[in-house]
């Protein structure tokens, strides 16, 4: 098959490309230029593009760089900034996957005559039965599993993607890279969002693009309990910076009112939530929706603990209510909740965004 491999310059996508070449496919590598500004982590600093290009050279495959900075800015960065102004905290990597990597890039790969688009994500696509639907599954290495950030994919996308390293642990990936003498074998994984530099951090990035407003911190009774420098940077459930209550116990953010510039805090009991509402418009399903009352396993962050839950439709509000078996820290508005099959917890069922 003709396969276009998205190469970030990291070891996972390097080995993904290598595996496809070994399997005899006609492979072409492409690195996306998504961000032209300050950045020190993967996805497109010039050094990362160079790494990807040199690995491609080592593998004997063509390499291209696609400039998608304009689309990335419009579809990922600008909404990310705007969401914070409204008190929401989206995961930009999820939005990049949704709108750029598995949308624009996927369409480009089809137009250019490629049969598949491959990435170095730790995830698996499988077809459980002959002629059956495709299933998106966790990668074999639980600690590195990236199914959460891919949980928006549906049958159409899954039919056209390949995740060659999904069946390998990270150690196996690195060992393979070392065996092939790939220059990225020992390269550390990028930890941060690609457009936010380590030094500036999320605060520094947003401060440059948003008006950040200080706010008051109050307890459940409305008594003054402190201040914050920027309400837009506070997330529900946050413990950092909230200090302790009169009872000596840690305080957590229970509510953020951006317009009133007020953060409400409470104890652990006050912040525990038994459910989260996902907006209907944000729901995506791998293979059709769950029925009301269905059991599922929820994951609310990239490497969060799976949580048993029940899924119900909320017709009035136009979405789904996920009821956790046990109370959880709140899921902040804008955060993605990935749902896995209760009977087959490695299989993604769908995903939605907390309203």
């Amino acid at each position, binding site marked *: 098959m003709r396969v276009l491999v998205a190469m970030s310059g990291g070891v996972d996508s390097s080995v993904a490309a290598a595996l496809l070449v070994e399997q005899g496919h006609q492979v072409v590598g492409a690195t996306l230029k998504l961000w032209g500004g300050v950045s020190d982590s993967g996805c497109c600093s010039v050094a990362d593009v160079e790494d990807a290009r040199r690995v491609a050279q080592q593998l004997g495959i063509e390499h291209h760089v696609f400039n998608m900075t304009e689309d990335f800015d419009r579809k990922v960065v600008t909404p990310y900034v705007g969401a914070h102004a409204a008190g929401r905290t989206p995961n930009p990597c999820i939005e990049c996957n949704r709108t750029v990597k598995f949308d624009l890039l996927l369409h480009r790969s089809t*137009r*250019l005559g490629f049969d598949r688009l491959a990435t170095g994500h730790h995830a698996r696509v499988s077809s459980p039965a002959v002629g059956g639907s495709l299933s998106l599954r966790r990668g074999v290495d639980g600690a590195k599993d990236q199914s959460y950030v891919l949980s928006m994919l549906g049958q159409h996308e899954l039919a056209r993607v390949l995740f060659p390293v999904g069946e390998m642990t990270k150690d196996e990936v690195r060992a393979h890279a070392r065996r092939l003498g790939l220059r990225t074998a020992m390269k550390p994984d990028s930890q941060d969002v690609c457009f936010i530099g380590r030094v500036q951090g999320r605060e520094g990035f947003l401060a440059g693009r948003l008006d950040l407003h200080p706010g008051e911190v109050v307890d459940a009774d409305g008594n003054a309990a402190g201040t914050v420098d920027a309400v837009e940077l506070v997330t529900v459930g946050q413990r950092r910076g909230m200090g302790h209550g009169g009872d000596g116990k840690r305080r957590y953010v229970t509510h953020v009112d951006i317009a009133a510039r007020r953060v409400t805090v409470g104890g652990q009991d006050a912040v525990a939530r038994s459910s989260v509402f996902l907006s209907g418009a944000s729901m995506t399903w791998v293979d059709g929706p769950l029925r009301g009352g269905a059991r599922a396993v929820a994951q609310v962050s990239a490497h969060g603990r799976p949580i048993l839950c029940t899924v119900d439709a909320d017709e009035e509000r136009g979405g789904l209510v996920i009821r956790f078996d046990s109370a959880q820290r709140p899921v902040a508005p804008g955060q993605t909740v990935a749902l896995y099959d209760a009977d087959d917890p490695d299989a993604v069922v769908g995903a939605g965004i907390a309203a």
Partner: protein
Amino acid sequence: MSGPITYLDHAATTSLRPEVAAAMASVHERLLGNPTGSHPPAQRARAILEDARDEVAAFLGRDSGEIVFTSGGTEAANLAVLGTAEAAFRARGEAVLLASAVEHPAVRESAKAAGRLGVDVRELPVDRAGVIDRDALDRTLSSRCTLVAVMTANNETGVVQPLADVVESVRRLAPDAYVFTDAVQAAPFLDLAEVGVGVDMVGLSAHKCGGPVGTGALAVSSRVELSPRLYGGGQERERRSGTPDVAGAVGMATALQLVTKDRAAAGVRVAELRDRLAEGLQAAVPWLHRTVAAGVQVLPGHLHVCLPGVDREELLVALGAEGVCVSGGSSCASGALEPSHVLAAMGVEPDLAVGAVRFSLGYDTTAEDIERTLAVVPRVAASLRRAV
């Protein structure tokens, strides 16, 4: 990648002429000394270098003493812009630089750097065809001007600037200012001795003319006050230190000689092939937009088009897969295509600019190259076209 290559990217680089390779190799048949020494090998090197310098000077219709060898067109542009700016600053405490809106990044970025150092940099607008706006030039010129930079012909569109008009305006309105022209793209096809009359500095690059990468030249009139960019042994009459690249200079000289010999005939031949390509493409791709209007003077080898609904990145990948080599514009440090400031300055709509493609023919382009291109481009363009 296998299969035949159809190379229509001569504006990016040209293939090294066999005579040039031979001439450069022959330089090393005996020990080549350092031209700045005094013993026989050094004398030999010096003689070879000076002969090469004479050839370059003849190509430009100038004195040998005006020729400064550089590492290429980019260094020549940097020297012209930043060298005059620095000298002016030292002499008068200020510098004013005028540069056209369509200059090559070597000039454009040098001008920006000059601006960050305190130089007053003004951009000279161009019209829809990318030709410098004479009235705007006349309005902007003043006795405070240090340098006016207008390229001879544009690297993306091939559009030729009215250099004689620029020289005339500067002489009249800013007689102390220098005129610099980046002639890198024009060198294979225009008679620079004629075109460059009255111009103070001319930039050249060998690898655009069948010569080696790594050698270029800046011609500098004796009246120009220029600070060097490279300090050291004071070579090139204190204008550009560093041991001269004798073999490179020989390569450049040989290439320019060959250009001169065949220039008129090559111009006609290449223009005819280019026109055949243009007509064929327009017929097979009716929705193709020819970027430069008819009647504007363009270099014989350039054909710049816009394909609405086609992404040029995709077009380049798809054409490259079939061995057809063209260009989409300037790249950034990572190799990704950047939006064209030239097209933006010309007022080309962004929807069109996204589908911009440059075909650039050269002295060794054949009719078969054109036939092959016409057999591939329309099909590929149609397959990539998205509903607009």
